[in-house]
C-alpha cells in the first residue's frame, strides 16, 4: 500500500494534482497558527526573569532555525530518492526547497544576531552553533549557484543531489554543537530528552510557531514543486488539461 502511494507520487500528473489539493490545507492553517503564535508570543506570554522582553525574539528565531535544518533535510532526502529511484518529481521537490531554506537560514542568523547583541554584547561570535549555521547558508547558496550554473537538467539534478546529500552531515552538527563543544549559545530548551525546560505559558506559543512554520514551508515547497514539474514536463499530454484547469480555477489551485 505504501509503495503504491510512493509510486503514484512519482507520476508528475498525479503529484501535480495531489500537491494542488494539499496546498490550501497547509497554507490556511499555517497562516492562522502564525497569527495566533505571534500575538501569543508578543502580547500574552510572560516576560523572562533574566532576559526580560528581549527573549521574545525566540518566537521567530527558533522556528526559523528549525525551518533552515528541516528544509535542508527534506532537500537531501528528496535528492537521495531522486538519485536512487531516478525520480524526476523528487528532484523537482528537492530543487524547490533551496530558496526557502536559504532565506530562513538567513533569518535565523540575523535574528540570532539581534538577540546576541543585547544578551551577549556582540552581534557575532565564531561559536560552533553560529558557525555551523553559517555553513548551512553557504551550502544552500552553493546549491542554488550549482542549479543556476548547470543547464543540462539531469546533470544538474545529479550534481545538486550529491551536494545536498553530502551537506546533510552539517545538520546533526548544528543540533549537537551546543553539547559537543563549549558554546556561547544556550543548550536546547524546547526538547531536552523529551522534556522542555520552558514553562507551558512560554512553550505553547513557540510550539504553535513551529507548527505554523512547518506547514508554511510544506505549502510553499509544493507551490514551487508544481511549477518545477511543469518546467520539466516538455511533452506530457496532461499539461494542457492541467493548465486549462488552472485557467478556469484562476488562482484557487496552487496559489
Amino acid at each position, binding site marked *: 500500500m505504501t509503495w503504491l502511494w510512493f509510486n503514484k507520487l512519482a507520476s508528475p500528473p498525479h503529484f501535480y494534482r495531489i500537491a494542488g489539493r494539499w496546498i490550501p490545507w497547509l497554507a490556511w492553517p499555517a497562516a492562522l497558527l502564525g497569527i495566533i503564535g505571534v500575538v501569543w508570543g508578543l502580547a500574552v506570554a510572560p516576560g523572562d526573569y533574566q532576559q526580560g522582553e528581549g527573549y521574545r525574539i525566540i518566537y521567530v528565531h527558533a522556528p526559523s532555525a528549525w525551518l533552515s535544518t528541516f528544509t535542508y533535510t527534506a532537500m537531501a532526502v528528496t535528492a537521495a530518492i531522486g538519485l536512487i529511484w531516478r525520480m524526476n518529481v523528487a528532484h523537482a521537490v528537492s530543487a524547490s526547497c533551496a530558496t526557502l531554506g536559504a532565506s530562513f537560514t538567513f*533569518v535565523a542568523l540575523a535574528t540570532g544576531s539581534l538577540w546576541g547583541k543585547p544578551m551577549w554584547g556582540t552581534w557575532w561570535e565564531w561559536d560552533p552553533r553560529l558557525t555551523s549555521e553559517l555553513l548551512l547558508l553557504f551550502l544552500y547558496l552553493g546549491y542554488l549557484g550549482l542549479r543556476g550554473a548547470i543547464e543540462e537538467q539531469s546533470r544538474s539534478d545529479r550534481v545538486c543531489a550529491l551536494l545536498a546529500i553530502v551537506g546533510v552531515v552539517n545538520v546533526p552538527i548544528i543540533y549537537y554543537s551546543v553539547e559537543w563543544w563549549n558554546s556561547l549559545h544556550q543548550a536546547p530548551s524546547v526538547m531536552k530528552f523529551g522534556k522542555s525546560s520552558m514553562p507551558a505559558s512560554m512553550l505553547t506559543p513557540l510550539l504553535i510557531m513551529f507548527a505554523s512554520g512547518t506547514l508554511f514551508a510544506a505549502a510553499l515547497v509544493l507551490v514551487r514543486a*508544481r*511549477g518545477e514539474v511543469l518546467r520539466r514536463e516538455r511533452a506530457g499530454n496532461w499539461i494542457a488539461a492541467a493548465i486549462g484547469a488552472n485557467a478556469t480555477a484562476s488562482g484557487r489551485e496552487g*496559489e
Partner: protein
Amino acid sequence: MSGFLTWLSMGKYAAYVWPSFGLTLLVVVLNIHWARRSFREAQALARRRLAMRRSES
C-alpha cells in the same frame, strides 16, 4: 495608552525585538511572492510550449 507604549517599548529591547519580527514577516511575504511568481512563470512557459507544439502539428 501608556500600557500600549510600555508593550511597544519591549522593556529596553524594542530595537531588537521589532526588527526581528519585521525581518521574518518580510521574508515570509517575499517567499510567498517568489513561489507564486515561479509557478506563474512555469505555467506561462508550459502554455508557450503547448502553443508551439500545436502550431508545429
